[in-house]
């Protein structure tokens, strides 16, 4: 379905623009989430449902951590709260809701039999094909990425351990 591709692409572009230009951090993050969901539907319409699902699980899920950081920082003191309140514009909220609604409508339409791939020559890519590509020709890339993640994990553990010694947190 070409229309599916174009609508979600337009939604992605608009939502990303709003995420960049937004003044309120939480509002901007909500637009970022909508943008990622739109990108997932772009992948879906191009015949890669596996990547679409991963996009939602990993990217949209990881944005949650940013949300937590923002929430913790904005509620640090009354000054930050006042500043945030002055930015509050109720009309900004109709935007993400409307865009997300367009995505849901698309999803329902594709479920009700209208689905398919955006381009006639695009082939359907199943999870097995992704796995075979990752652990075949791109094996070295997977290994390098896992090395990088391991380095990040070790670094995070190191930072976390220092803090724990200083504060004497409860043993859980």
């Amino acid at each position, binding site marked *: 379905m070409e229309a599916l591709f174009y609508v979600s692409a337009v939604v992605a572009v608009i939502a990303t623009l709003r995420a960049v230009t937004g003044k309120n951090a939480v509002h901007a993050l909500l637009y970022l989430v909508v943008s990622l969901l739109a990108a997932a539907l772009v992948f879906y319409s191009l015949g890669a449902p596996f990547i679409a*699902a991963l996009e939602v699980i990993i990217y949209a899920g990881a944005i949650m951590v940013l949300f937590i950081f923002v929430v913790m920082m904005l509620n640090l003191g009354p000054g930050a709260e006042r500043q945030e309140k002055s930015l509050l514009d109720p009309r900004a909220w109709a935007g993400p809701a409307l865009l997300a609604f367009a995505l849901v409508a698309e999803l329902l339409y594709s479920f009700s039999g209208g689905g398919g791939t955006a381009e006639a020559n695009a082939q359907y890519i199943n*999870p097995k094909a992704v796995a075979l590509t990752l652990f075949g020709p791109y094996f070295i890339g997977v290994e390098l990425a896992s090395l990088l993640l391991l380095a990040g994990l070790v670094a995070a553990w190191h930072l976390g351990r220092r803090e724990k010694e200083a504060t004497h947190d409860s043993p859980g």
Partner: protein
Amino acid sequence: MTGVMVPLVTMIAILVSLTTMSAALIWMERRLLALWQDRYGPNRVGPFGLLQVVADMLKIFAKEDWVPPFSDKAVFVLAPAVVMTAALLAFAVVPFTPGVSIADLDIGILFFLAVSSLNIYGIVLAGWSSNSKYSLLGGVRGAAQMLSYEVFMGLSLMGVVMLAGSFNLRDIVEAQRGLWFFVPQLPGLVIFFIAGLAETHRIPFDLPEAENELVAGYHTEYSGMKFGMFFVGEYLGIVLISALITALFFGGWLGPFLPPAVWFVMKTLFFVMLFILLRAALPRPRFGQLMSFSWKLMLPLSLLNVLATGAILLARS
């Protein structure tokens, strides 16, 4: 035209029956809790107190739907809708019977995991937009808890995926013709059930709304039908997790003599009752205990389960 009409009618039928069933579950939970705690529960309105739900619904619709002036209004209104939508959307991939399901997706399990990860947004946004300390604490707790438990929720299902060789829930049910997967995947089942409890934030994992310390957690400021949507959303979550346990580990609609739909509903209701029994039986842990339980015990266990299943499958092939 029929090509569009049939799925549409199925969707509406499933939607209506799910919301009605979730509302009826409120009555069932109260009666069952009462039974296990040696009291009567609601038994005055209608036969066996069945109309209690109708009375409660009328009451909740008649209540003032108050939006606090200090809240971020549009997010405040959006949050309960996100909870309901995410819970209902996940049912799209649940195979109820061989003929009845909304979408036969090749990535069924991943779709469920993706949609359930969106469910957190409802809770965090509700907690944040309420602009109250209790709500915010509840929202932050909810986010931390659901993020942690989602990690091994996905991993616990990989054993089933490996055995069935597919992410498609219909194929997984069909693959259980010889042996239901709860036998070879018992650790997976236990881990998924615990993750499901945390995902629906039921006791013993209901710290986001712990009433003895946080009033009502993330939905403290909600009233009227907006609160009702959180409430029904929670029961939808219970039905969803029970239906998935049925489909993934207990053969879905498979079973002798009775029609497939009856088997599916019976198995699902059994797990719903297990959820309720746990609420009657278990206390609530501290939040630190909850988090370390997730990362230090459940995550390594689910990784071991994936490793062992993979090794056995490799050795057999």
